[in-house]
């Protein structure tokens, strides 16, 4: 019964979406098709605000239909002349095809972003959230949240600057090992060897597994007593006492070295993607370059340096960029390893601290400001990076 109800609920939602799309399409169709008719303005200015206000009121979304009507009238007063005098019915089909996707993006991507900016200048926290939900009242506090981001801890101890440093370190180490490991594996696989397809299939397993399962399973392997890693270390130390003398032995991974644990897990997760991308790049290099280099007398390392690496760069650069952004934004691994109640904050990077500040510590406005700061960092780094990338492209 419950299952049937859940299907009903979802189907109802799909129906709403389809109806919404139809409404949007109809609305725009009117503006594109009838922009030059004499009754265009009166019908638009009267019809749409009236229908909109009545519809909202009927569905119980608003309590003051007159105010909504005036709002809609105002915006229609801008939209209708725009279509009549500027758009003039051009590219009708293209815009109609684009409208649903872009309205979806505007509502669920752009609006939340703008809302977050707004939120960062106010004071929404656990104690004020019910008031906001019921009345919509948000106190304005200016830049206080931004000042707090830099002066107080986003969690309970760690400071913003420590998080930033840790994030940069985490990103660098991860991407470095992803590329190094992926490159090595791709080079190994790019030989004419037997079982190549079979090896490749097995090597992408960490990437193919659902990330939640992969991370949680690896977390189990780092368990102090029953995890594979410590069992192995213990056995090694028992079998070769001189290794134990060097300090090798079981380690309290999760409590003493949480960041190392997360890094090891994430390296394990990320190598297959790089391997696949680089392997694709390697296979796209025409073999005649290697033939020519053979005749020119290049050794294996020289071929690597003078041919493989320069020719694989165009494929590598976007992949490395993507990998860097993903690693920088990786909440999953860190949260899944350290996110349980009582988990440590010594492994947190900026984004995971952001998530915890919002949903463990319930400091909404604070984490909104925190998010904007992180976004700004990422934005400037990417702009700088893209500029230098363009410059490098121009050079060639």
């Amino acid at each position: 019964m419950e299952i049937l109800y859940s299907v009903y609920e979802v189907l109802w939602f799909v129906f709403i979406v389809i109806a919404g799309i139809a409404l949007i399409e109809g609305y725009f169709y009117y503006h594109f098709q009838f922009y030059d008719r004499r009754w265009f303005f009166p019908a638009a200015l009267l019809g749409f605000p009236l229908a909109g206000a009545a519809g909202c009121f009927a569905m119980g979304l608003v309590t003051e239909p007159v105010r909504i009507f005036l709002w809609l009238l105002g915006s229609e007063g801008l939209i209708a002349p725009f279509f009549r005098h500027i758009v003039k019915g051009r590219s009708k089909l293209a815009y109609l095809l684009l409208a649903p996707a872009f309205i979806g993006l505007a509502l669920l991507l752009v609006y939340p972003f703008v809302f977050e900016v707004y939120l960062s200048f106010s004071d929404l926290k656990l104690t004020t959230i019910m008031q906001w939900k019921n009345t919509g009242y948000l106190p304005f506090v200016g830049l206080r949240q931004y000042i707090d981001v830099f002066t107080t801890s986003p969690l309970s101890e760690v400071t913003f600057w420590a998080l930033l440093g840790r994030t940069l370190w985490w990103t660098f180490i991860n991407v470095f090992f992803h590329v190094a490991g992926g490159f090595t594996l791709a080079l190994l696989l790019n030989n004419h060897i037997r079982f190549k397809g079979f090896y490749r299939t097995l090597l992408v397993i960490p990437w193919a597994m659902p990330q939640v399962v992969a991370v949680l399973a690896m977390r189990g392997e780092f368990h102090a007593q029953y995890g594979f890693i410590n069992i192995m270390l213990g056995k090694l130390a028992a079998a070769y006492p001189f290794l134990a003398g060097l300090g090798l032995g079981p380690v309290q991974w999760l409590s003493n070295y949480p960041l190392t644990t997360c890094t090891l897990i994430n390296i394990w997760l990320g190598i297959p993607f790089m391997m696949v991308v680089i392997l694709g790049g390697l296979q796209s290099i025409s073999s005649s370059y290697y033939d020519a280099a053979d005749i020119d007398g290049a050794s294996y390392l020289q071929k690597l340096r003078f041919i493989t690496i320069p020719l694989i760069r165009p494929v590598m650069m976007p992949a490395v960029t993507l990998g860097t952004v993903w690693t920088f934004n990786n909440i999953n691994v860190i949260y899944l390893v350290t996110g349980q109640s009582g988990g440590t904050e010594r492994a947190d990077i900026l984004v995971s601290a952001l998530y915890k500040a919002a949903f463990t510590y319930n400091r909404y406005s604070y984490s909104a400001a925190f998010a904007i700061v992180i976004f700004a960092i990422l934005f400037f780094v990417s702009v700088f990076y893209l500029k230098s990338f363009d410059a490098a492209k121009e050079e060639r």
Partner: protein
Amino acid sequence: MADVKFSKVTKKFNENLILNGVDAEIRDHEFVVIVGPSGCGKTTLLRMLAGLEEITDGEIHIDNVLVNNMHPSKRQIAMVFQDYALYPHMTVEENMSFALRLRKAPKAEIKERVTEAANILQLTTLLKRMPKQLSGGQRQRVAIGRAIVRKPKVFLFDEPLSNLDAKLREEMRVEIAKLYQRLNATIIYVTHDQVEAMTLAGRIMVMNHGIIQQVGTPIEVYRKPVNLFVAGFIGSPTMNFIRGKLKVEGDKLYLKNDDISLYIPSFLLSKTAEHDGREVVVGVRPDDVLVGGAAREKCSEKLDGMLEVSELLGHRENLYIKVGDTRVLATVEAFFNQSPGSKVAVCFNYENMHVFDKATTQRING
């Protein structure tokens, strides 16, 4: 400069026999063109000589040195690839000097050799460009320049002109011929285009199905093809083939089939009686088909044909003539003054007729 010797060279890919015991000798300063249809193994043979392909069996000697297990760079060869294989991230100059830089040659020498090669190929103004910024013909010249810079014992060309358009191909053909005169090097040149083979080669090596069919000067290969394959492959337009049985009538030998009764003079096949009843294929090049007035003047025995189509090529004209059910192509001086559908007399220039055994496909006349 050096000579090259293949002895019983065999290549297998898995179970596929690509080359089946190739024996050949290429002399010093010789320009040899290996020609054959695609898939005949000619490129494989070249790549084995370069050391890019493993040798399944047999031996390859360059300058009397066995090179079977020698690294390509040690064989003192240079190769021009079909797709040129110019390193896209290096300038023309860097491309040309790459081998020397790897060998750590002195800078002055590198510069001198690159300049020299650039002068020969008129690349001097392009040295700082990237391969991307060059036209097809220019890239081709850079690829050749890269080979020249290395001063190899043997130059290898792997279908170097196949990526160029028709006009450029003609120009580059002349360039390569000039280059050969200037360098006087040993050149081995692989192509599927028999025109390139005819115009460039000192000797032609015709290959098919991994076997060398015939080796000889262009004239030899053209005038005296040893078998049906060579006869059909060399020459453009393609040779006419007429199938039939040899029959002795009186003391004269005739080729007979349903449509044709063709006199075979005794200077072609002397021991007339021996050939009675033999299944043969007679080949005649379109240039050696005489039609109309010319046929009436020069031949005693004529065939009756019907003109199907005529194609005007300029100063020559292709005539497609039906003799019974056999179609014969004749290339004659323009303008042949008869309309399609009219009856014409046809005969062949007996001196240039080729007779092949149908079963063995080998040539049987002298």
